[in-house]
């Protein structure tokens, strides 16, 4: 699983050309790469697309040594699915690059764009309940991850996790999750009360999409090239 806090830090603290591009252009870049993966019938254009996105990431001073392993995470299920298709090496190559190329594009998006900006863009097309819940989930996730980290440290210090004792470990993990859940619900109730006092009326996520800027040529150009290669290599 990804280190959400680290990704959030990279997204908020970078200042390269990808960070400066608008959220809309980066989402369009992702859509173009996904479209490229959907239409591709050969692994080679997607391989070239992966290399291009990686080169752009290196040029834009993104943490590419962390991005590559994260993009490979998508390979596992692609391989499992490939086994179910019983294809040859070319089919496996196609499946793997259909998995890792959009995955690298997604990682480029989330490592250069703070989540609230992505949710802000999504809120223009989603119902209010969904947009607000997305924002609230994102906010609560960091609090809970922190609480879970503290719980894991506490249980380890008190000898609650012992190697080889699956039953004892499961029982302690289950209690930790249950405690986390009860606390999450209590926090949610308190939070609602605080928000209601401050005039919360059902809308939370900042709405609206920023327009395109001159600096958007980099994400848009990269996306167009990946899609064009996938279409041309038919």
């Amino acid at each position, binding site marked *: *699983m*990804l280190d959400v806090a680290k*990704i959030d830090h990279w997204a908020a603290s970078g200042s390269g050309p990808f960070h400066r591009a608008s959220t809309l252009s980066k989402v369009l870049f992702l859509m173009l790469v*996904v479209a490229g*993966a*959907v239409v*591709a019938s050969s692994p080679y254009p997607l391989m070239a697309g992966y290399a291009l996105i990686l080169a752009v990431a290196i040029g834009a001073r993104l943490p590419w040594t962390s991005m590559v392993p*994260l993009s490979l*995470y*998508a390979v596992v*299920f*692609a391989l499992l*699915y490939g*086994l*179910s*298709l*019983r*294809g040859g090496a070319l*089919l496996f190559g*196609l*499946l793997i690059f*259909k*998995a890792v190329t*959009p*995955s690298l594009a*997604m990682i480029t998006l*989330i490592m250069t764009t703070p989540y609230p900006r992505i949710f802000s863009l999504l809120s223009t097309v989603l*119902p209010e*309940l*969904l947009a607000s*819940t*997305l*924002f*609230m*989930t*994102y906010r*609560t*996730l960091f609090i*809970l*991850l922190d609480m*879970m980290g503290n719980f894991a440290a506490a249980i380890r210090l008190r000898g609650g996790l012992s190697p080889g004792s699956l039953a004892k470990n*499961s*029982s302690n*993990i*289950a*209690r930790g*999750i*249950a405690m*986390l*859940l*009860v606390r*999450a*619900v209590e*926090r*949610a*109730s308190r*939070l*609602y009360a605080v*928000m209601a006092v401050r005039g919360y*009326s059902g809308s939370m996520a900042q709405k609206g999409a920023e327009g395109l800027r001159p600096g958007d040529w980099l994400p848009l150009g990269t996306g167009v090239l990946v899609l064009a290669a996938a279409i041309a290599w038919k």
Partner: protein
Amino acid sequence: MTHMHIPDGILPIWLWLAGFLVMSLVLAFSFYRVRGMDTKKKVPLLGALSAVMLVGMTLPVLPGYHINLTVVTGILMGPSLGMVAAFVTNVILSLMGHGGITVIGLNTLLVGSETVLGHLLFTLLKRLPVFWRAAVATVLTLFITTLMLVGIVAVSHLDPEVLHQGEEHGNEILNGSVSTFAWMALSLGAVGWLIEAAITGAVVRFIAQVKPDLLGHDLHRSPGRKG
């Protein structure tokens, strides 16, 4: 346990488009069902439980296995809000590169089915002690949704254009490959169902002891409605 980590571009276009269409209809029905509720009061709670599901997915209980807590969410939130939580969780997962964007629809249907079935089965199995009630509901739910996952994979192979799958010997390959996938999903999944069932049972028992009002389904009841 049963959401698909399938990346973009692998499933046939008609299948994931159908997934988005059905998901939109199901979400629209869920919104219709919660129309009487004070939904702004539910937002912090939905956010909290969706975040708990995401935290559960960060916990590798065994190598290659993580828990989902979808049945717990279904039991606490009810089917309609459970479906909303499933959508939110899948959007954030895909934004973390954990599964493709194009499979959000199908994944929401799978995870959402777990919340709906979990809630339904927990409600039906009233006679069992609370631990077993939640655990049995979890195993049955995950068994059914794993079959749904196998069904999705089987249906995806029916596209004659899919990934240059040849027409010759097509049926032979299809039957063999889907049964291989089904065998792998069911046998590997069964271990996961038991782990998830044990943890879900313990979590729900703890809640029943510490905060039983959460299991009274007050959370997903409209303030004006009874029953």
